[in-house]
């Protein structure tokens, strides 16, 4: 509420409502502040869903398959008869969501990315990642602009929840940091919601 009050903006509200509520209400009156969901909440929902999905994938699919020796996860899973890594699972689903044209996007970022495209793009992202060293459990949110465009961004810390994450990042030839440990904050997940 405080955020909404702080960054209260009619357009923001409009967009949020359009995107997520599939509202049954007709929003006619400009003067009366209509009921809606704050982008923080939306990002929180989305993050919760994504995190749960990825956890399920990691624990119930990848770990079990690897434990039983049926199939393992590998970076080049396409031609190694393997499963995508949990991180790739998220990145690829993010790409699919982006390609769907809904506007909402999410991706994984890190201060020590294996591929440069996954480095923080904005100052907000950088600050968020840096903040996680102190407050890893608090999401970092803010409004960012690209030219004339405005976006809401929420960055959630992302931990090395599985040994596969640590192993891959510590051994990948392009990885700039190779001393990750399990449960370390390796980076964050950025959820971007356009505001116009």
């Amino acid at each position, binding site marked *: 509420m405080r955020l909404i009050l702080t960054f209260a903006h009619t357009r923001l509200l409009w967009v949020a409502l359009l995107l997520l509520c599939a509202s049954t209400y007709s929003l006619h009156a400009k003067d009366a502040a209509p009921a809606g969901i704050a982008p923080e909440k939306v990002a929180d929902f989305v993050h919760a869903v994504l995190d749960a999905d990825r956890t399920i994938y990691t624990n119930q699919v990848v770990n079990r398959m690897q434990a039983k020796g049926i199939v393992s996860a590998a970076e080049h899973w396409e*031609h*190694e008869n393997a499963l995508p890594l949990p991180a790739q699972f998220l990145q690829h689903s993010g790409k699919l969501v982006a*390609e769907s*044209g809904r506007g909402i*996007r999410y991706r994984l970022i890190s201060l020590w990315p294996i591929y440069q495209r996954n480095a923080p793009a*904005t100052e907000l992202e950088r600050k968020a990642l840096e903040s996680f060293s102190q407050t890893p459990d608090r999401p970092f949110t803010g409004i960012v602009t*690209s*030219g*004339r465009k405005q976006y809401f*961004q929420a960055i959630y810390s992302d931990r090395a929840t599985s040994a596969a994450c640590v192993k891959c990042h510590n051994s990948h030839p392009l990885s700039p940091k190779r001393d990750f440990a399990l449960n370390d904050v390796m980076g964050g997940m950025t959820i971007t919601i356009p505001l116009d």
Partner: protein
Amino acid sequence: MHTPVTSPKHPQSNPLGWGLKRKLIVSMLLVGIVPLLLGLSMAFLRGSKEIQVVSGESFQALATEAARKLDLLVAEEVARTSRIAVHPDIIQQLERHRDLLQSGDKRVSPAATTQQRAHWAARDPVAVKAITENSTALLLRGFYAGSQSESDLLLPQVVRAATKKLFVTDVQGNLFAALTTSPGFAHADSPWWKGAYNRGVGQLFIEDLHFDEQAKTYVFSISLPIMDSLRYEVVGVLHRVIDAKEFFSPSTHPIRFGKTGHVMLIDSRGTVMSCPILPTGVRLSDPSLIPKVTGREPGWVTADSDGHGGQGTAIIGFALLPETSRATNGSVDNGAWHTFVWQSSDELFAPIRHLMLWMLILASVALCLLATLGYFAASRIVTPVRRLQEAARLIGRGELQEPIDIHTGDELEELAVEFNRMHTQLEAAFAGLSTQVEEKTQEVQYLQKSTDQVLDAVPTPIIMIDQQGLIQYMNRASRDTLHTQTEDWSSRPLFDLLPIDDEHREALRRDLRLVEAGTPITSPPADQDQSIKEARDPLNQALSPAPPSLRRELRIGPHLYHYEWFPLEGRSGAGKRFGLVLRDTTDESRLQDQLIQAEKSGSLDVLTAGIGHELNNPLFGILGLGEAIQEEEDLTRAKGYAQDIVGHGRKMAAIIRDFTGVAARESKSQRIPVDVTAQLEQALAIVQTSHECLGLNVQKHYVAVSPVTALPDQLRLAFINVLTNAIQAMNGQGDLWLTTEEQDDVVTIRIRDNGPGIPKQHLGKVFDPFYTTKGQGEGSGLGLTVAQRLIKKFGGEIRMESPEGQGTTCVMTLPADKSGVRKEEPCVSS
């Protein structure tokens, strides 16, 4: 005449000896060759297989390693390029450009863009300057030249040279900034732009190899989306065209092994991107190879061609560039890049070929050695065997003089010892045998000599011939008969030697043929031959003799011979032999004639004496009674004497009648059918008149019988004689039974009396001439003899049956004459 033992000229020992030797050598060679060939083949196959596997796995490893290296090369280049794409100034300018486009600013309106495009195409300096010298272009240039980069991020010289184009487009695909004027203006429809823009989401797009018209070379391109400052959406696309050969060759070309082994980079269509041998841009020569070497997972294959124009088994390792392929044409599904590691199969299999060559050379040497050793070994084995063989041959001929001397210390020596033992035993056995043979021969010679002597001693000529009629043996009698010398008769035809006329010769041949056919020679009819074999009856006239040709008789010189053929057992294999016996019957005939003559005269003497005797008694009686009558005065007594004279006269008449009945010549010689019953009746009547038969009771039982062929007078005489005999036996008193019957064409006549009968001891003599039981002068003793002769003459039989005390029955049988049937009613009278 015998050549030495091991003479090579011997016609039979050579092939045999060589056969064994050759077999031994061939066996040894086979024993050597077969495992050698098997081993060589196995070695070659296993070697080839293992070389394939080892090489394939090595090639696969090399391909994987090369793929990783090239992948990193591309990834590094992508990373370098992406530094331009993330440059904040470029992003800012593009964001601004985007905003202008979205706000509908007239500077970037479609019309303005079209105009700018035309200017660019026309190389209008203003337009060119606007694109090649704007701030973004300057940044590009700085990046390309290295002035904008940290020292460790400088573009390597090779990469810089390989970069043929570097430009940036805006969100609409129109040229935004470029290093040179070579790029086109609008790219919104090109695949790379669409791929990299990806509906505003953006993704790395690596374009496959293609020929670039401006650069005049084969190139590939890296297209990177330039994201806005949030990395939220695409604001432009950075496109970089790179000469594939220049870019990759420093990495691929140094990887060489052997003379031909190398690494090649191909795309999924089989187009060569970089190869030390093939030029970039060509397709692999064998299209069928492409699917085999473009699998997603690294591997190796054995293919029938090498992709470099060579035919023959090739081993190819391959691997996919993992990260790069993820971006090629937007996704790995649209094509991927692969390394291809190959070495010429000639070179690859050269070691095993060398090995094979050496092994073949060694094998040939080994075979030569084997053949040589085999020859010597076979000679060592065969030589004593040949000696044994020769010895066995000599033993077979009985010519072995010395014992076999073989000292090989093995089974052959034992065999030689056995041979010697066998030889000794054989010699002993043969020695015994020859003694036996000698004895037997002597025995045979003795037997033959005895036989010859016996045969020579036989006065009967005996001749033996073979089937061709050539004489094989003649005894002395025959030689004498035929007047031949020993040398003459041997193997001469018998029929030429016999001095006989053609008729006899033919008869002789005919008989021989009968004997040859196994038919027993039937004797000539008895009546024809009887004159020779039996004494002639002096009372019976000799019938005309058979013609000499029908008899088995030959006349040689003055001698008459009866001949006889007999079959002889021939030697096995030889034909039949036959013997001819000639019996000299000259003397025999003469003797017989004499005998008959003597018999005749003897009979006459007896007859004469008998007649004289028979007639004398009544005659003396008559004389005495006559004298008594002369002196008798008493008439009655004289009448008595006269009655006695009449009795004596009757007796004499009877004797004379009997005699004439025997000796009378046949008035008729023609035999005719005669009624037996009638003749019997006449005979009875005659007998009854001449004898006192007052007490005679005649019982007759005549069954109608067929006539018999006879002379009626003689048949009647025979009956008279039998009847007289019967009546005399009964002294004219008693019962007389006369019976005729016919059965099986035989007419039987029975005359039975109930007189005293004939004692058994006399029964056999009753038909003898002059045999009589009656008193002197009572009978001539000829009656039954005559009857017998007559009945026999007519082909009948006569016999006397006299069961003791039951009288006598005379049974006569005569063959019935069926030619003229004349039936008579049976008549019975008493």
